[in-house]
């Protein structure tokens, strides 16, 4: 992974957590606590419909279209880590994040 992808990855993860907080009606700290208690990003699971909601919110934040779970296999978006990996390549690197 390139340096810029790493930077975008961190920013994207933050955007997804923010989207999750908005969708669930919780604050970001509460979401981060749940992620920690689940064992980290790779063990924090997200249902496909919730993933659609979160991706829609991240699209608004970034102002670009991102992959939709409707087009993906289940294992491509099942965890927070998987969603970050999915979204990062779809974000134009020229965007200022």
């Amino acid at each position, binding site marked *: 992974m390139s340096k810029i992808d790493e930077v975008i990855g961190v920013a994207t993860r933050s955007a997804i957590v923010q989207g999750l907080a908005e969708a669930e009606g919780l604050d970001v700290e509460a979401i981060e606590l749940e992620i920690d208690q689940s064992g980290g990003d790779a063990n924090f699971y997200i249902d496909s419909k919730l993933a659609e*909601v979160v991706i829609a919110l991240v699209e608004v934040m970034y102002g670009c279209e991102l992959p939709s779970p409707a087009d993906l296999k289940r294992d491509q978006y099942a965890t927070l880590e998987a969603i970050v990996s999915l979204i990062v390549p779809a974000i134009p690197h020229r965007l200022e994040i």
Partner: protein
Amino acid sequence: MATFIQGTDIGNAWLHAFEAIHANGGSIVNLAVEISDPRREDLGVRRSIEVALMRMNDSEKSHQSIHTVANTIFPIALYRPEIEGAAERFIANALKSEFSRRHAISKQWGSYLGRLVAYPSRDGKPTNQLEFVLRQLRSGPPNFSDLYEVPILAPGKSDEMIDWDGEARDNADSVGAVLHGDVRADARWRGGPCLAHISLTLEAGAVSMVALYRRHSYIPRAYGNFLGLARLLVFLSVESGHDVGNLLVVTGHAVDDAPGRKHLLDSAKENQGEVADIEWRARSLGASWSDLELATVKSSK
């Protein structure tokens, strides 16, 4: 002649209906299936269907799990009744998920959930039928106990014509939601939308539902659709403060046209009896849903 099936739970009703379709050569015209307690299902029957679906999967066709089919009507991951304003949050999130689907390659005609929260009216303005129906169910005691079906929503009409706070409010005890859109767009031979209409009746403190399908494939779709409708009925009942009534699913053409149906019938009969409450709300945040995916269904007889 039409056929009427009565079942105690989702699995029991599905099995009796499937048996009737099989006995009639794999097809029934005008089939009505009543589920007296849609809050209950039969996990043994459900597992038999999912094993059959896995066997039917090949490189060209991949069937959805029952949970995924049910999600097309009511995705439980978006519903947390323990949170204040749960219904409004569910509806807001459902609208966002539809936004995400708009540019999906495999969006096809849309989704039932999309038709519920953003029905494409002819005037181009989406109608939030779910919000409308819920508001109607919450609106107080019905005045017209004999008014069983009110065509409140129709393509091209808006709920703005109803004065919710005024004396002239049309306080009916039945509401309907249209899921089949314009015939010019939806009148396809197969491939959905097959669910055309949902009708709700509030009587004796309980909400009951009638769902109308033009066609129903009983192996890949019917159980999941029964489950999705049951989840929607529980949601509407809980959020309007009423009990859950019964569910009636009427189908114009019910078929079991997939291979291996005799084996499935035998398996479902053998495995029936594992009756449990349906899952109708989100799991704890971060919890896995993988046990409901088709690939992980354990082998069954």
